[in-house]
């Protein structure tokens, strides 16, 4: 068993849509989703009746106590198909770890195995209008929460604060070094018209002036909750060649899940780095490439420390060195020879679109559709979530 994707280069993205990313959209999430899907299908040069597959993940990524309603706070693949008036051969939601690479894997596998010919992948993210995003009014800590919530260990800021501080302490990094990550994400996001942060770069001073919430995490280390929808259309490489836009091919993917049981939200640094290294091995063997082939890595940055972790597990810099690598301009998208790892602005530079900004940047750059931001790139890697609790997809401009 080689671990190589049997359909490497045989499935392509052939069209897309990205709605404006807003703090609170005027329209219901379901309306945005339907309109986004129709635009993406048209962008691919196809008709709604050509679509026979729907995939996606409808997780609302919050610790808060919000009411979940399909078509309002989430959009499932089945809901979308029904509201587009399609009776699809294949409609599945991804409920595993790594919602974006997991959904892409479902789409690519479905096309490769002829479970569907044209698959719509959509991710719809919602920022509930009432209550704090992660605020939770639980009265007693039951089930898994009984072991951590009574201590006040709750929510994703606490979750990321522990491995972030562990990294700082172990490798002699400083919170000041993280400014380069966040400033880079916001610089690139400020150049993107649909971004929530369009025309709003962040300075190092602004970053350092922000007080910490769970040390060493400040609010600029966290992506901002938003309303936004992105849709991608997948089909076979063969069919994609006859459609209007240059195809972008799926070379392979790597997935990760927690290797051992842990307390809720407990992500020790070694779990992240060791699990991430294993995920990277799976990615490279599945895609048939290595880090030296990648000229457009798009690392995940829903929390800023993930940028360091991803750069290290993917082998773009030595273990314990990412903080220096980034602070010295290693991922500066404007510096010739640097690795443009946040050129798409990421989640910090766009808003909480999960791994969509990473995937979209790979698609736009490799299909030659990035406009004024166009770079010369052949191989992209779109990462999502934590390296040990997510995954990554490798995309190529050529079907090799």
């Amino acid at each position, binding site marked *: 068993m080689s671990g190589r994707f049997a359909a490497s280069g045989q499935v392509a993205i052939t069209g897309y849509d990205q709605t404006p990313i807003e703090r609170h959209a005027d329209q219901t999430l379901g309306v945005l989703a339907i309109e986004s899907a129709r635009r993406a299908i048209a962008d691919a040069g196809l008709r709604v009746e050509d679509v026979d597959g729907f995939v996606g993940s409808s997780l609302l990524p919050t610790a808060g106590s919000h009411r979940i309603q399909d078509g309002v706070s989430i959009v499932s693949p089945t809901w979308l198909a029904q509201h587009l008036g399609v009776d699809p051969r294949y409609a599945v939601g991804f409920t595993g770890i790594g919602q974006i690479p997991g959904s892409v894997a479902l789409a690519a596998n479905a096309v490769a195995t002829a479970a569907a010919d044209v698959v719509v992948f959509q991710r719809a993210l919602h920022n509930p209008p009432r209550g704090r995003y992660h605020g939770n009014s639980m009265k007693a800590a039951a089930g898994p929460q009984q072991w951590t919530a009574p201590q006040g260990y709750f*929510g994703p800021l606490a979750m990321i604060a522990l491995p972030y501080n562990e990294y700082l302490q172990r490798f002699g990094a400083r919170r000041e070094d993280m400014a380069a990550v966040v400033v880079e994400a916001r610089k690139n996001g400020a150049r993107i018209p649909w971004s929530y942060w369009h025309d709003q770069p962040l300075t190092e001073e602004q970053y350092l002036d922000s007080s910490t919430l769970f040390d060493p995490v400040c609010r600029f280390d966290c992506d901002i909750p938003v309303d936004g929808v992105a849709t991608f259309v997948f089909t076979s490489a063969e069919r994609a060649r006859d459609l209007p836009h240059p195809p972008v091919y799926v070379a392979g993917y790597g997935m990760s899940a927690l290797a051992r049981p842990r307390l809720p939200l*407990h992500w020790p640094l070694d779990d992240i780095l060791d699990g991430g290294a294993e995920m990277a091995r799976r990615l490279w063997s599945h895609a048939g490439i290595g880090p030296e082939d990648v000229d457009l890595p798009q690392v995940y940055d829903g929390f800023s420390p993930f940028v360091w972790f991803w750069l290290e597990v993917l082998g773009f810099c030595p273990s314990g060195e990412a903080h220096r690598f980034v602070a010295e301009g290693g991922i500066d998208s404007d510096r010739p020879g640097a690795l443009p790892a946040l050129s798409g602005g990421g989640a910090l530079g766009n808003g909480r679109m999960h791994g969509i900004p990473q995937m979209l940047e790979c698609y736009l750059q490799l299909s030659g559709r990035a406009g004024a931001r166009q770079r010369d790139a052949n191989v992209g890697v779109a990462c999502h979530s934590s390296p040990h609790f997510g995954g990554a997809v490798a995309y190529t401009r050529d079907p090799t």
Partner: protein
Amino acid sequence: MTTERLLPEPDEQSAPFWTAAADHVLTLARCARCGAMTLPPDVVCPRCGSTEPGFEFVPVSGRGTVRSWTVARQAFLPGFEDDLPFVLVDVELTDQPAVRLIGRLLDGVDAPVRLGAAVEVAFEDLVPGVALPAFELVP
């Protein structure tokens, strides 16, 4: 207005843990098949894989080392506002190194905590009959 701290809700499996904690005794769940200790107890033993682990909560020393920490300055749950800021430590237990607990560091935000610092279990008394494992630095 002061909201009361969030309390753990014991279930059938965890009840002996919370009963012991109320007496300021830290316990771990020991597998009757292989003797490995774990927390929280799962439906299988994490070491031997037995689906009939017959977990029994046994007292442990509660000594360990700090693997990481954070200072909480904001709360997402009701009842913590009056406690802010507070320190949470990620502790690897000497009794069973695979077991990690997260608890308050009762020494406060100015304590000289560092990676590898020795700690031992202490308890926060929340209400009569309910105590929560926490930690203190070992001088």
